[in-house]
């Protein structure tokens, strides 16, 4: 017979399968409900993560980009110093039909005081526009300013008495109406380079509607005539031909005609190429760069949320793994339940292949049904997930439900894959059914050893392990047995894979010579050992950075799998223990015998049941412990890093000593204030991003602090504030990682950095004073572009200048919430920057009190400082000064950081709780099936004298014991991983007792209900009827 004939005959013969499946699925639908629900929940999770995160991304992107109005790129240098020449140059030389508008703007950020409401608002953008121009918002019909009622506002109003327009959001926020007066200060620039401030009152001539074209600074904008503005800020005419920024639009309506990230970047590259030869040939100031801001923001949001999505998907994968075990479990039950049916089918002539096809197709049908349910559930859940994340992370932005064309494919694929994966083992089990055995109800003797084939699989696995070892040795020079052979993520991943396959291979081969229980014991102990080695040692040997997610997941899974298999293969011993325990009471002896035998008879099923709980609870316990450790273990840690600074006061406009002694004003706020130290701070110092970090010329704003000896030291030389810095000069570096040192040593090293800094010398590469060396600088290394840099280049008024990095700030409180890297420079270098030239006096204060960092009284003092600085009746206001002071308790910075993490962990907790829900659901489904399937046995038990209560207890006890085993494994594994994580992140480890108690209560309650309901149901059936049950 030819191959084609065989196929045709087979296909013809298999025609009965569809109708068989249809009947089977229809008739057994109640029994399959558990599988469909599990698949639907799995698909729901994937779809929800997909839709939720995509919707969230879209919401944030839209919200963040709203700040840009219809602009795509900016040209300038971030310091507000762009010559009109650049605009003329671009307008005349750059012709690209994609560019719809090029606009020059003069913008100043200041604090506004509204007389009518007495409110003060910081960070308001004051934009000077040319009111004589037909297109005041820029070239090429970017539009005009419209009132809230839709009429075009008469710009000539701005030319009269000092009058301004304010945008709708600002008007709403500060309760401003047309005709009110507002007050704000603007910096006056003189030809000699000095700066002072003018405070003026303006009449609000109109409210500008909040729409795309005028929404910069989130719509918190004041529009002023450029000429009127110049009259105030530019008495010497030095700013007449200046812009702060040149904006470029690639679309006049981004909603209708969106601009892709690639388009934005390509225009950026073109403009940069045009600017470089003219403005940046020798990197002379002023350097002009083009930046595709819209593309950058969008890309950053999308890629950040992609990481978030990946993380959620990893969690979802772990949860779904538990779902897979649940479905497999139900499928196995189904095969066992239908053994006789399969036997009859085989006896009637169905081939083994047909049995496999039958079960496989049945799984597929269930998968497709589950996928569709999961798709719709997922879209609904995803929508709420997006809203929930937006809310708990206080991200802002309105979630828009984004359902990609790929979502339905994702749903179907994940559902079908789930069904197929879970269908494999049961199909093979059905295939291997012995017709005679099942029809006669007998069981042939099974060898305690694994089948002969396992030796071949064992050798194959060994060969794979050796191949991994060979590949590993080819890729890395360090040997496996050396400590250095474990310090890279890639190295450790390959080492782990090698050992994983090695243990498996050896176990399989050994199974030919010893019992399979022993062989599985060897494999599982090997896996537990390997993962424990990772969590206790390996994870601490890793040096450098990188994504260790794969390594972490691999070891996490190995730990859980190892423990589960170890307990599973030794279930008999555990059963004997339970039997012994229950044997103490004559009422429970018979129950003990039945329960433990029921559990140990179907080892695979029992193992699958408790492994569901083990995986889910490991995740839950890990997240709960991590969260607890982070919350409770961090207070001392942050107290150390705060270095004695309790409050920082930031002024928009510095208070000159000639007007008032602001330090005294703060000091007098509360008797507990024991020090107030002023310094200058700006975010307008530019660093040149190292060429290796970015391909084209790029600048980065630096959050710069001018620090002198008296800022941190007392007169006697002792330190009053300790901003912790890690030495970066080779000879000063500790011989072990900084964060592993005790706090005393960390402080010593940090002070050695500051001692070097305050020496005032130029520093050589080796950290010696050297006139030919570089001025010292201390930087925040949490920004990757400045990590591991020996020097950094800053743009001074004399052009780019190199600084020697002598220390890296670690957990610097003030650096936590800024978008720019913090740097510390000495006063003698501050004057090299135009930004500092514009700050005539201290605009930043460190305040220390006699209270603890986290004392609630510190917050009250901070509020009082703001009140005495900003309120209508404040001494500053009485002198006509609007300083715009913000007093922030340092603890708040850390709380923000912690609460961000805590919020993330809280969210994870909710997310993994879904898994817990699946586990509980699984427990109920399994229990229902278990009890239903054992109806006949229960009839037998009743016939020989088991009471109804005893039958119910058996049902509850079995499922509770399995749940409890899973719970214990989950708790042990979860705590183990969390403990090593806490050690890695330098937090004290705390056991989340309350959570554990909750998990126990939920497990107990759900197992109780899961056993009670079917138990009662089946106990009610008359034994005579139960005895007639045949599956």
């Amino acid at each position, binding site marked *: 017979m030819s191959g084609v004939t065989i196929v045709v005959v087979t296909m013809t013969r298999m025609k009965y399968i569809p109708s068989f499946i249809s009947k089977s699925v229809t008739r057994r639908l109640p029994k399959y409900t558990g599988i469909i629900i599990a698949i639907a929940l799995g698909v729901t999770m994937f779809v929800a993560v997909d839709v939720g995160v995509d919707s969230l991304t879209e919401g944030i992107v839209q919200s963040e980009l709203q700040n840009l109005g219809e602009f795509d790129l900016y040209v300038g240098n971030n310091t507000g110093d762009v010559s009109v020449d650049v605009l003329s140059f671009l307008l005349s030389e750059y012709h690209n039909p994609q560019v719809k508008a090029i606009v020059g703007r003069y913008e100043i950020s200041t604090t506004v005081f509204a007389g009518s409401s007495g409110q003060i608002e910081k960070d308001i953008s004051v934009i000077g526009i040319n009111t004589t121009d037909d297109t005041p918002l820029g070239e090429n019909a970017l539009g005009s300013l419209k009132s809230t009622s839709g009429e075009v506002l008469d710009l000539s109003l701005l030319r009269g008495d000092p009058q301004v327009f304010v945008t709708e959001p600002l008007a709403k926020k500060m309760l401003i109406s047309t005709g009110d007066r507002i007050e704000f200060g603007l910096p006056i620039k003189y030809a000699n380079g000095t700066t002072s401030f003018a405070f003026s009152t303006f009449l609000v001539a109109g409210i500008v509607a909040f729409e795309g074209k005028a929404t910069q600074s989130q719509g918190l904008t004041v529009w002023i005539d450029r000429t009127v503005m110049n009259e105030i800020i530019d008495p010497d005419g030095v700013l007449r031909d200046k812009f702060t920024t040149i904006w470029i639009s690639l679309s006049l309506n981004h909603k209708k005609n969106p601009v892709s990230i690639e388009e934005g970047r390509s225009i950026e590259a073109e403009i940069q190429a045009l600017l470089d030869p003219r403005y940046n040939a020798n990197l002379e100031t002023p350097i002009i760069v083009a930046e595709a801001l819209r593309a950058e923001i969008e890309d950053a949001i999308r890629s950040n949320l992609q990481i978030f999505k990946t993380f959620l998907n990893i969690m979802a994968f772990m949860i779904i793994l538990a779902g897979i075990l649940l479905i497999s479990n139900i499928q196995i039950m189904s095969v066992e339940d239908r053994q006789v049916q399969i036997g009859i089918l085989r006896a009637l002539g169905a081939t083994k292949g047909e049995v496999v096809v039958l079960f496989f197709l049945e799984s597929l049908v269930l998968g497709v049904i589950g996928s569709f349910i999961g798709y719709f559930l997922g879209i609904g859940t995803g929508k709420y997930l997006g809203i929930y994340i937006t809310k708990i992370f206080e991200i802002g932005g309105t979630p828009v439900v984004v359902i990609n064309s790929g979502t339905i494919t994702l749903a179907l694929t994940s559902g079908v894959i789930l069904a197929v994966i879970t269908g494999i083992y049961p199909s093979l089990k059905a295939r291997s059914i012995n017709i005679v055995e099942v029809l006669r109800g007998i069981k042939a003797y099974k060898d305690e050893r694994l089948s002969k084939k396992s030796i071949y699989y064992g050798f194959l696995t060994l060969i794979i392990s050796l191949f991994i070892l060979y590949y590993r040795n080819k890729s890395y020079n360090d040997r496996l047995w050396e400590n250095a052979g474990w310090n890279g993520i890639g190295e450790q991943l390959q080492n782990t894979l090698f050992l994983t396959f090695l243990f498996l291979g050896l176990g399989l081969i050994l199974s030919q010579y010893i019992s399979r229980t022993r062989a599985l014991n060897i494999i599982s102990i090997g896996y537990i050992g390997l993962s424990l080695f990772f969590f206790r040692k390996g994870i601490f040997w890793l040096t450098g950075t990188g994504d260790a997610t794969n390594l972490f997941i691999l070891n996490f899974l190995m730990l859980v799998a190892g423990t589960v298999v170890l307990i599973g293969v030794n279930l008999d011993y555990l059963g004997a223990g339970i039997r012994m325990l229950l044997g103490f009471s004559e009422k429970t*002896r018979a129950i003990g*015998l039945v329960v433990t035998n029921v559990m140990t008879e179907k080892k695979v099923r029992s193992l699958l049941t408790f492994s569901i709980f083990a995986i889910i609870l490991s995740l839950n316990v890990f997240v709960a412990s991590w969260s607890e450790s982070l919350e409770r273990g961090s207070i001392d840690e942050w107290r150390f890093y705060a270095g004695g600074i309790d409050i920082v006061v930031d002024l928009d406009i510095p208070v000159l000593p000639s007007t008032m002694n602001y330090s005294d004003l703060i000091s007098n706020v509360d008797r507990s204030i024991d020090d107030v130290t002023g310094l200058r701070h700006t975010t307008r110092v530019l660093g040149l991003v190292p060429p290796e970090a970015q391909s084209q010329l790029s600048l980065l704003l630096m959050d710069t602090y001018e620090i002198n000896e008296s800022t941190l030291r007392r007169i006697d030389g002792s330190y009053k504030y300790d901003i912790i810095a890690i030495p970066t000069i080779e000879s000063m570096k500790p011989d072990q990682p900084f964060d592993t040192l005790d706090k005393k040593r960390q402080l010593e090293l940090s002070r050695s950095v500051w001692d070097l800094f305050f020496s005032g010398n130029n520093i050589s590469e080796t950290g010696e004073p050297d006139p030919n060396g570089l001025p010292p600088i201390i930087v925040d290394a949490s920004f990757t572009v400045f990590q591991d840099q020996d020097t950094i280049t800053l743009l001074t008024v004399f052009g780019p200048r190199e600084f020697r990095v002598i220390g890296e700030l670690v957990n610097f409180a003030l650096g936590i919430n800024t978008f720019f890297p913090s740097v510390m420079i000495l006063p003698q270098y501050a004057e090299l920057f135009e930004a500092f030239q514009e700050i005539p006096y201290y605009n930043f204060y460190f305040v220390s009190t006699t209270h603890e960092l986290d004392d609630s009284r510190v917050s009250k003092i901070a509020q009082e400082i703001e009140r005495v600085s900003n309120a209508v009746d404040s001494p500053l206001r009485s002198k006509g000064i609007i300083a715009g002071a913000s007093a922030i308790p340092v603890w708040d910075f850390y709380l923000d950081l912690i609460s961000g993490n805590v919020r993330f962990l809280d969210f994870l907790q909710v997310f993994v709780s879904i898994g817990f829900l699946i586990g509980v659901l699984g427990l109920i489904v399994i229990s229902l099936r278990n009890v239903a399937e054992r109806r006949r046995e229960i009839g037998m038990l009743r016939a*020989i*004298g088991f*009471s109804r209560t005893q039958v119910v207890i058996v049902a509850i006890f079995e499922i509770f014991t399995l749940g409890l085993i899973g719970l214990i494994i989950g708790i042990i594994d979860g705590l183990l991983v969390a403990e090593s994580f806490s050690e890695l992140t330098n937090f004290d480890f705390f056991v989340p007792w309350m959570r554990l108690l909750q998990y126990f209560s939920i497990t107990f309650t759900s197992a109780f209900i899961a056993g009670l309901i079917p138990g009662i149901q089946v106990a009610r059936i008359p*034994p*005579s009827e139960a005895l007639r049950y045949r599956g």
Partner: protein
Amino acid sequence: MTKNIVVLKNVHKIYDPDGVRVHALRGIDLEVKEGEMLAIMGPSGCGKSTLLNLLGGIDSPTQGNIVINGIDITTLSDGEKTTFRRDNIGYIFQLFNLLDFLTAIENVALPLLLQGYTMSAAMEEAKMLLRQLGLGDRIYHYPNQLSGGQAQRVAVARALMTHPAIILGDEPTGDLDTTTSLDIMSLFRRINRQNKQTLIIVTHSRTIAEKCDRIVHIEDGKIVREESVQSAKEEIA
């Protein structure tokens, strides 16, 4: 004079599954003497197994009284019936109805555990009984590792374990070959003689029934005939 250990008066059983009324037993009156070995015969669906289930207290009659060992079990609650069953009845089923997940010895020891024996004592007793029944080498086997005859002997051992006053057998040899069936019947007879336990067996087989003292014939839920078995008497003699 030997007392009646089982007395049935006007026992009716009506099933009503899915609204289809089935009158399985229609006024059964029966008396069984202590130590008697009674066979119940009749065609399929005549009500034999129903009668046995009622006697064992695993089902309740729709009407009538069943007095066993002086107790009217129709008046007992479910819990009382369970205790009664545990103390007075030994059950042997056609399909052996051994618990698959327990070994032979565990199946046999289970009724003793329910009576409060310690695990070791129950196991010891079960082991002895299994040895007596010739299953010394099958003690730790699971039911599906036993032949039909071996499994039925385990079921017999389980029924005997608590020394019940009455042993009920629902087609106890139905799944066995002739030789094994006769072996089992000899076993029953031995038990019956040694322990003076009452045996009530439902069977299709005349050969098996003739091993008993008396045969009751049931048709359409009624006792249509009773006969004493001479061969049994001779065998006893």
